[in-house]
């Protein structure tokens, strides 16, 4: 495996923001997650829960509710606006002010023709969903007090609205309130403390399920307006409810961090009189569960503790498979760290600022902080640092900035390059060439803009484009330039990888499409082979010269990867190469880094993958027989970046989960046993 000098970097104080709400689209199997900083993330549940898209947030935009209508995603927030997102270009498409004060909730009817929003002033506003826009239709009858939660009846004829102290059922046609269900205030607490219905569900058999701030989940008969059952599930609040598609199961998230499942089952098997029964309790969060989604096979929950938890329901999935494993998504599925290999600089990307750090020279000295850029109200979507450390570029939703950096012994300065070509307006990914002379930027319509950067000026060179048969143009989310400056590889979210010849400035070839999205790509500096790792953990090596998969890649595919490798639940986010030994490929995910030695045989299918420790204890003769291509190191945990500098020292950027946990606000008080 070799020995490296390691820079163990723990000063990247990345702090993910709390999950505010989520919406699951069962047609496309996409989950949209809104965070407290206004960012929206899209996860593809078909592709190993890969985080496909991130729409950066904005200061002052707080999303309270998300809603899918077909392929369109709407959000509403306390700023009183309804926003529809452009999911291809990852930015808000338009916003509409509802003129009702802060919006607490948004919900669409089952046909996808109308959108109801609940406002602070007590109105439920109905918007018609048109092509490309939404249009205000009417207000339902106004009530005193704010509308906290909304749910359409599947027939779209009624709307249940949760308010303080009551639930109101509206007739969607006439706008009249047909029934009011009064919700009891908390027992024991003062009677003056009003109870907030945080969430309602309206089932097709006119059952209404509500979760409120008194810790109750209540089942109502919506036809008669009577209370059927009350389950006191927590001493604190029931914040969110989610109903499964077949309406046989409801989950409720509480302030205690628990998710409680209720199921509609018959008490005896041969009879059909079913009733709601409280069943399982899932305890995967330390803080409020403020977002829930009930997919067909799993409970997806998120909350204040910033982690997205996918808990498969064991009665719906095959046991002891990859599908039945609990998954916690704590870190973004992309690299937030840039590394200048020659200069020893690290660039950390935060939503609202960039930090540039210089690695220390010797053992004794620590690394020093050189520079911080604090930016405007738009959040950063991507950033890049050139290998020489002289250039820094970042992009927000609306603009691109380029900086020239002078790093002295103690001080450093940065200079914004004033005039950028007008083509560089909105980009998704930035990348410098290895000699730092060119900047590549993926733009809209799946094109790559090539800009020459030099001391004097910044000049637009070319736009690389490929012809496609399909009309849909997917966003490029990965860019990679080869060391010799000849090749550029791009990957888009439709799983296509294109290779451009930079000398000729035209498309060289396209890698055969694999059905899983590439999570990272890299071009080998010596052999010019393209290594791609996909969301389902497969590894491919593609020879750019011969335009075919290499022998190594074919052997790997025929033999198959070990299940231990395939069952890892975080994607590979970065690949580097060892300049001394061209056979070595260094890649990492959140929990390990791995050096793949292409000269060694693949492990047997039943072999132990993590065997570095046992190998160390074996005598040399046996060690050779036991060693295999995958050399895995798990000493470093919660990795944000592993990169090999030019002086062959390894930079390991860690962000321990415990540090994140310690920065979270205190959870609600819970009685712990024996305290």
């Amino acid at each position: 495996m070799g020995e490296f000098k390691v820079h163990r970097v723990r000063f990247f104080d990345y702090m993910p923001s709390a999950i505010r709400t989520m919406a699951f689209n069962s047609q496309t199997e996409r989950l949209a997650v809104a965070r407290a900083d206004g960012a929206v993330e899209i996860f593809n549940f078909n592709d190993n829960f890969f985080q496909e898209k991130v729409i950066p947030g904005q200061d002052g935009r707080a999303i309270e509710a998300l809603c899918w209508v077909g392929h369109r995603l709407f959000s509403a927030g306390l700023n009183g606006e309804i926003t529809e997102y452009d999911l291809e270009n990852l930015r808000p498409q338009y916003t509409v002010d509802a003129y009702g004060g802060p919006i607490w909730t948004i919900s669409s009817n089952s046909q996808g023709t109308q959108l109801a929003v609940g406002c602070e002033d007590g109105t439920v506003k109905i918007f018609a969903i048109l092509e490309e826009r939404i249009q205000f239709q009417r207000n339902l009858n106004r009530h005193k007090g704010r509308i906290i939660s909304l749910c359409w009846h599947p027939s779209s004829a009624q709307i249940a609205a949760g308010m303080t102290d009551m639930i109101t059922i509206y007739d969607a046609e006439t706008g009249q309130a047909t029934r009011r269900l009064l919700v009891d205030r908390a027992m024991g607490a003062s009677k003056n403390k009003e109870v907030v219905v945080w969430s309602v569900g309206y089932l097709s058999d006119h059952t209404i399920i509500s979760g409120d701030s008194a810790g109750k989940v209540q089942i109502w008969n919506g036809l008669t307006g009577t209370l059927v059952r009350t389950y006191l599930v927590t001493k604190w609040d029931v914040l969110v409810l989610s109903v499964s598609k077949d309406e046989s199961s409801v989950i409720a998230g509480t302030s205690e961090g628990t998710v409680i499942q209720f199921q509609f089952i018959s008490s005896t098997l041969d009879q059909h009189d079913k009733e709601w029964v409280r069943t399982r309790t899932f305890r995967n969060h330390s803080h409020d569960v403020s977002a829930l989604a009930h997919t067909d096979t799993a409970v997806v929950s998120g909350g204040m503790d910033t982690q997205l938890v996918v808990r498969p329901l064991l009665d719906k999935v095959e046991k002891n498979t990859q599908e039945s494993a609990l998954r916690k998504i704590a870190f973004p599925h992309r690299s937030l760290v840039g590394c200048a290999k020659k200069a020893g600089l690290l660039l950390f990307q935060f939503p609202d600022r960039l930090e540039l750090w210089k690695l220390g020279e010797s053992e004794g000295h620590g690394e020093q902080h050189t520079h911080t850029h604090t930016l405007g109200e738009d959040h950063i979507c991507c950033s890049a640092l050139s290998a020489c450390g002289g250039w820094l570029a970042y992009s927000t939703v609306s603009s691109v900035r380029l900086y020239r950096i002078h790093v002295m012994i103690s001080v450093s300065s940065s200079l914004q390059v004033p005039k950028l070509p007008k083509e560089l307006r909105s980009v998704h990914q930035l990348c410098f060439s290895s000699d730092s002379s060119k900047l590549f930027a993926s733009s809209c319509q799946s094109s790559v803009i090539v800009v020459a950067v030099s001391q004097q000026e910044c000049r637009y060179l070319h736009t690389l484009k490929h012809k496609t048969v399909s009309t849909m143009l997917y966003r490029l989310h990965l860019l990679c330039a080869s060391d010799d400056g000849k090749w550029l590889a791009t990957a888009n979210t439709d799983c296509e990888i294109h290779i451009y010849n930079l000398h000729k400035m035209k498309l060289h070839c396209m890698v055969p499409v694999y059905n899983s999205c590439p999570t990272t790509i890299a071009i080998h500096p010596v052999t010019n082979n393209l290594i791609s790792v996909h969301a389902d953990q497969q590894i491919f090596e593609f020879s750019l010269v011969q335009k075919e998969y290499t022998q190594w890649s074919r052997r790997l595919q025929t033999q198959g990867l070990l299940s231990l490798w395939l069952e890892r639940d975080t994607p590979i986010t970065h690949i580097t190469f060892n300049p001394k030994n061209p056979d070595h490929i260094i890649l990492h995910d959140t929990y390990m880094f791995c050096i793949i030695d292409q000269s060694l045989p693949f492990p047997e299918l039943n072999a132990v993958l993590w065997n570095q420790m046992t190998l160390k204890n074996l005598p040399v003769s046996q060690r050779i027989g036991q060693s295999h291509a995958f050399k895995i190191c798990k000493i470093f945990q919660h990795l944000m970046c592993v990169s090999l500098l030019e002086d062959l020292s390894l930079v390991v950027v860690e962000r321990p989960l415990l540090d994140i946990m310690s920065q979270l606000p205190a959870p609600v008080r819970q009685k712990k046993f024996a305290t």
Partner: protein
Amino acid sequence: MVEHGDIRVVHCGGSKLNFRDPVITHDSRFLLCASGEAVKVFSTSTEECIHELRGHTGLVTGVLLRPSNHLQVYSSSLDVLLFLSSLFCHCGSSNSSCNTHFPILSLFIKRFQLVAVHLPQSGDQLVEARELSAVLSGVNPNPAAIAFGRGGEFIASVNDLQLEVTYIFKIQGGWNTFTCVACHPKDDCIATGHEDGKIRLWRNFNHKKEYTYSTLHWHHSAVSSLCFTPEGTNLLSGGVESVLIQWRYKQESERDFLPRLGAAITHITVSPDGSLFCTSHSDNKITIIQSCVKVSAVIQGLVKGDIRTDLMMDPRSKALVLNGKPGHLQFYSLQRDKLLYNLDIVQQEYIHESGLQQFEVVKAAFDASGLWLATVEERHQKAAELELNLKLWAFDEQTQSFVLNTTISAPHDAQITAMSFRQTADSQTTLLVSTSKDGHFKAWQLAAPAHTEDEGPSWLCDFVGAYHGLVPECCSFSADGSLLAVAFQEVVTVWSPATWELLTTLSQPPGAVSDLCFGRLSCSKYLLGTTASNLLCCWNLLTCSLEWSTSMDVRRLLVDPLSENMAAFCYQSGSTDLFVFKPSEPRPLFSRKAVCSGKVTQAVFAPREEMLESCEESSQWLNRSQLYFLTQQMTCFLFSPLKLVIDDSVAMTPFYLLLGKHRQQQQEHRDSDSSLWAERTALPQTSASIKELLQTPAHVLPSTSYLCSMFVQSLLISVSDAREEKAHAEEEMESEKEEEDSEEEMESSRSKPELVAAATESDAPALTKAQARELRRVRKLDHSWLAGLLDS
């Protein structure tokens, strides 16, 4: 050595009451529980044992009421027999039995079929449901691990990490081990208890495997028992916390607690009408609870725990004294097989949590008159720290119990190894000697209070002795109290308690002396000791020399306080031998090889209340006292001469004269008449039944009208011709219950051959009860008018 056949080892009670879950009868008046080789019937209101159903020769493993007749009971045992016995048959013996060919581990009832858990020789365990032939393999031997679902349609069984629902599927329990299972009587809901204290309610276990569960969590340790109430409205659970929890079914957040039940709960049962709950506890106790709020009765057996004290006899109450509940001494009457009371020694709240170090009573000693009791309690908090308390208790005549007189904290620096009172007749100079691992022995004496008047006399240290820094292991006073022998490892030192002068030393190396006894009466010049090198030595104190020694591995050396006899329990090749001898005689009085398998841990001579006049030489040593011993399995045994004097004579009362005379007549009748009817009328008048009638407590007797009728009948039946008419009168006066009883008896005796052949209970009575009654009424009608008609 002579083998004596006429002395036998008798199992004398103190057997486990909590081995299997007890059964409450339909009217909630009686409680049946398996106890050793018998089934005991207790009254739920008075806690008294009413009678025992005997007949098994192995450990009884299951008791069940017969569903078709709730006055009959099935019992199974390891002796491969299955008994069906009548609950209130006065003779208490079984009515029918069948051989199952397998040792039965537990019994279940599914509708009207019996299900037994077998332990076949092949090794893996099976549940065999007869006529159902459901066979589960790999079943947990604990009966709490199997339950029958609604109407007996499925069997749920748990084992380690699996819940298996027969005919449906298996559920992998995830990460926590199952401990027990219960099925809801009405709904398809299975409750399972887990090692980590959680209770899971499994539902919706249909064929599509879409089962689901909800979790209830209150227990902090493993749930040991679960039970649904008959209507299914409540779920009861219990564990080591000794709290009975009542969960409302479907409103599980509401629950009731019944705390402080005294010891860990092992079984929970509910009476068929749901009014009584009954919990078995690990300290061999059954608690009867009325509607989850009030403990109404406690049936306490011999508490079986870690016995650290010696077995002792309380000289006053003649009760066996040993460790009872944690921190208590129990006083157990062996004559009545009943716990008299528990004496709280530690006087601290016991915390029900495993692994917690708490105070334990490790030594106790009575003085000869039973006026004083000395106890030692200790607690090992950590390896270094040792907390010791020596407590002296005086017997209070007024309250008839022991009252704490003196507490000496840290009487020694290390563990106390032995403690002994001077056994003198005059109680003025009571002296207690304690030896400890710190190398000292201390003498404690009752001293008058020095300064204040309001305090009574208390105990003070009188003398501290040591010998060359050696550790004293045991001590003993001579019978007259003039000598004290303390064994310091290999050396036995003899002291004079009057002057605390070292009189002499005796030694027989190698091997430390582990037990010391002075001879009694004519043998009081002898001092006997056992050494660790398997030597039994006898020193003559007059010559201060070794009289004799023999090589045997003596585990326990006992001296009979009323004679010169001594008993030695020797452990040899897996079993224990007993020798009874006089120190002065070369031949043992009695020896018995292999008294029991395993080691005898504790034994005691108990003086008899009245002397036995046995003339046989071999059993003479049992004339004055009885020898009790306790095996490792904590069963108590007694040596008793075979020739038991059966107290057949009934006191000379007018009743006796009447009945006795009548009995002879009855005897003649039976010879001449062999009809079933005659058998039946004769039955209540046999000597045994009358005896039982006169001896049973008044509260369990049948109604007076019934008794009366019996006596009237016995007065009137003298002419055999008149019997028919008298029988009519009697029959009408009989209670309904008796009627059913007799009917069942007849039926079972009729079906007995079938039973043995098919080894199953047929549940096809040809007539319903109402029909049978009608038939009998018709038969009883006076048909003499018909004869009159015919005549005329």
